[in-house]
């Protein structure tokens, strides 16, 4: 029976390897399935399997990019003290996504950052006041874990209202993390400006307290798919 158990274990590890896994996962604190992944999964499940045209298993139609693996990474970064007031800084947070799970032979074809808030801020902002969102990439991190002043600005956008969900294309950044094997994360800042009264701006800042979380959706093309695409 021990020989059989050993053989079964070997077979299992061979299959897990072909599925792209180093070991059998055992999730400790399973997170809820992101709705976008459920939607894609359900849509694929309902597609008839005997179509005249075979489904391209190496393309993610929903995003119109090549790929066969879609991952959603949760943010592991911490909030950063706001420090000296610069305008009215409401939120400052380090974003960190551990992409080390990606295998060597996977190519990143898309990376999309989602910043989520509990609710829209339509009712809180008044005329003339705007939210400013900045996303930057630190080039160095100090010993205290604080980003050094040298930062590359990736996104700077102003909004009259903040929406529940904001999406940003970070494909180039994710490819850069992979290529240089160096991921120092990102820094997210949200500020308000344009109001006359400090109290008014502080009131607007409280609407940012509805900040929920961020996640990074990454689409990759595995070696297996790259070979089959070339063959076709």
């Amino acid at each position, binding site marked *: 029976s021990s020989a059989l158990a050993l053989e079964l274990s070997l077979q*299992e590890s061979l299959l897990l390897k072909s*599925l*792209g*896994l*180093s*070991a*059998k*996962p*055992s*999730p*400790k*604190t*399973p*997170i809820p*399935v*992101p709705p976008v*992944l*459920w939607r*894609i*999964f359900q849509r*694929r*499940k309902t597609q008839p*399997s*005997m179509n005249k045209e*075979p*489904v391209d*298993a*190496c393309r993610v139609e929903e995003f119109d990019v090549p790929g*066969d*693996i*879609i*991952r*959603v*990474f*949760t943010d592991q970064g911490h909030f950063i003290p706001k420090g000296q007031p610069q305008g009215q800084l409401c939120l400052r947070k380090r974003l960190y996504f*551990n992409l*080390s*799970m990606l295998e060597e032979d996977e190519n990143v074809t898309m990376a999309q950052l989602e910043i989520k808030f509990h609710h829209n801020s339509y009712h809180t902002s008044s005329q003339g006041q705007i939210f400013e969102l900045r996303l930057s990439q630190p080039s160095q991190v100090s010993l205290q874990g604080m980003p050094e002043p040298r930062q590359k600005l990736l996104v700077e956008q102003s909004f009259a209202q903040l929406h529940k969900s904001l999406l940003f294309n970070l494909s180039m950044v994710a490819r850069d993390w992979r290529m240089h094997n160096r991921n120092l994360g990102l820094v997210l800042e949200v500020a308000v400006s344009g109001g006359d009264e400090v109290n008014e701006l502080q009131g607007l800042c409280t609407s940012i307290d509805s900040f929920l979380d961020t996640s990074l959706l990454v689409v990759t093309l595995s070696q*297996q*798919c790259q070979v*089959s695409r070339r063959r076709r």
Partner: protein
Amino acid sequence: RSAQHPPITLSNLCRPRRLYISFSDVGWENWIIAPQGYLANYCLGECPFPLTAELNSTNHAILQTMVHSLDPQGTPQPCCVPVRLSPISILYYDNSDNVVLRHYADMVVDECGCR
């Protein structure tokens, strides 16, 4: 020389047979989120002489059955194997507890053939 084979009927010709794979049966229910199982199927059946077009045979398989009919001991019949497979998507937790949706090729047997 005559081969000792049971009579060939339509029911024992090479074709896909129903096989439902349940991920809980292999102890994977903790990390595979969906599906809980799927209809994978398998191929089983005879590839007798003469091979017909319905058996999805290759020219090589046709010749092999001819040789087999002349020398049943020395040459086996062609094998009944999958010739068309389709992919499925699996939603699972990886080794870092991230949720992953992956499209896997060659998971479902759609057609079998004598090869």
